[in-house]
């Protein structure tokens, strides 16, 4: 039997309540341990697609099997199991960090899973150390830099031991140092990852495969370097050939 895909999306369609179609017939799969990039212009439907991957959208899971996580369709019954498996990193860390202190925030996810006591404390400490913020437990999220906020968000996902990480613009609005830090951190996490981003440089660094989304449809998919080197395709969908590929030596 072939290995079950971590994420499998088959013919997924979605329209917002006002009738605006956001996704049309989207199909792709992510194998366990793989890192896949989702790129496309603003408004292409990237964020909407990500919200489907752990059952935030549609608002009531329909069990249609359009999205399968490790082979299981998302239903009302397994919704919390799915949310434990698939961790979502939101674009704006201020939306995600909802507790008064960093420590409590990292504990939020595991607490929902029923964890408590010393085990919870150990997980929080370990997750914060993992993202390079050991000892930040008592700090207020509001007083952190954007890069640090992102790290805390990631620590929150790591503390849940999610097997799949779905990241929405993990490097947006970061200074080069913050961006590099997040990139190195993501590269060191062994989980299955899906990264939606405009930062094509990190796609080249992190992702082996790329899916190009435009107008709610997948317009191209394939191996990262080959796809991102296709200048005509990139320009047609509001993207560009990333610099790292322009300067890469042929015999490198």
């Amino acid at each position, binding site marked *: 039997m072939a290995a079950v895909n971590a994420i499998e999306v088959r013919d997924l369609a979605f329209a917002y309540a006002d009738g605006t179609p956001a996704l049309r017939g989207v199909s792709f799969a992510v194998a366990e341990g793989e890192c896949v990039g989702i790129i496309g212009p603003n408004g292409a439907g990237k964020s909407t697609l990500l*919200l489907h991957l752990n059952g935030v959208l549609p608002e009531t899971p329909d069990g249609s099997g359009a999205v399968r996580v490790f082979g299981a369709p998302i239903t009302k019954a397994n919704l919390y199991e799915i949310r434990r498996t698939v961790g979502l990193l939101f674009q704006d860390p201020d*939306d995600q960090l909802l507790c*008064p202190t960093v420590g409590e925030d990292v504990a939020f996810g595991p607490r929902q*899973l029923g964890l408590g006591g010393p085990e919870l404390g150990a997980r929080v400490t370990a997750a914060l150390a993992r993202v390079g913020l050991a000892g930040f437990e*008592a700090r207020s999220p*509001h007083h952190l830099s954007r890069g640090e906020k992102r790290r805390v968000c990631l620590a929150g996902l790591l503390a849940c031991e999610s097997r799949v990480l779905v990241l929405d613009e993990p490097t947006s609005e970061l200074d080069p140092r913050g961006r590099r830090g997040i990139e190195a951190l993501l590269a060191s996490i062994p989980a299955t990852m899906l990264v939606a981003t405009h930062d094509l440089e990190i796609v080249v660094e992190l992702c082996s495969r790329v899916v190009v989304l435009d107008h709610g449809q997948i317009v191209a998919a394939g191996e990262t370097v080959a796809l991102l080197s296709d200048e005509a395709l990139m320009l047609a969908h509001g993207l560009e050939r990333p610099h790292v590929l322009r300067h890469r030596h042929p015999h490198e």
Partner: protein
Amino acid sequence: MRHDFLDRYSRLASPVHALPAWLKALATLTLVMAMAVARPSWWPALVVATALLVAGAWLSRIPAGFLLRRLLLLEPVVVVVATLALWQPDGGMRFALLVARSTLSLAALILFTNTTPFGEVLELLRRCRVPSLLVTVLALMYRYVFVLVDEAARLQRARASRAFSRSAARSWRSVASGAGQLFVRSSERAERVFTAMCARGWRP
């Protein structure tokens, strides 16, 4: 932008800050209850309470001016309410007692909130079995009031940099539209925060 206007000194290192939150909460509650039932003949109790609070404030190393300003901010409410007592028999006495009792209670609460980080207060409420929904709402309020203030400041700055008119009517209009915008932005944020909460496994 200052984000610590609410509890600037709650994380100082002092003997009072170091006390466990439950002890401070219990002491505060006891003092407030005692003030609530105090009779005129109990004036020594008022003196003792005052002495305790002054000692606590002094030990906490919080600048006295800060605590007094906080107290003064709330004092008008106390005085207005206490004024009603003036129309009763023996009004002056009742008025003075009411003001003294309320002021001491307020001072105790101000001292408590400024020597205990809000996170510890929430933890205490949780341990006292306060409904978790209520604790969550309090936590969210505390977390997002700062985000909201930042957002308001950004809107205000953007407006100031584009406003060329000194007309008061126009400036009021722009304040009104700013308030409207802030409301819309907050409600959108609320929606996104709720989505994020759900994504992180929160069960409504």
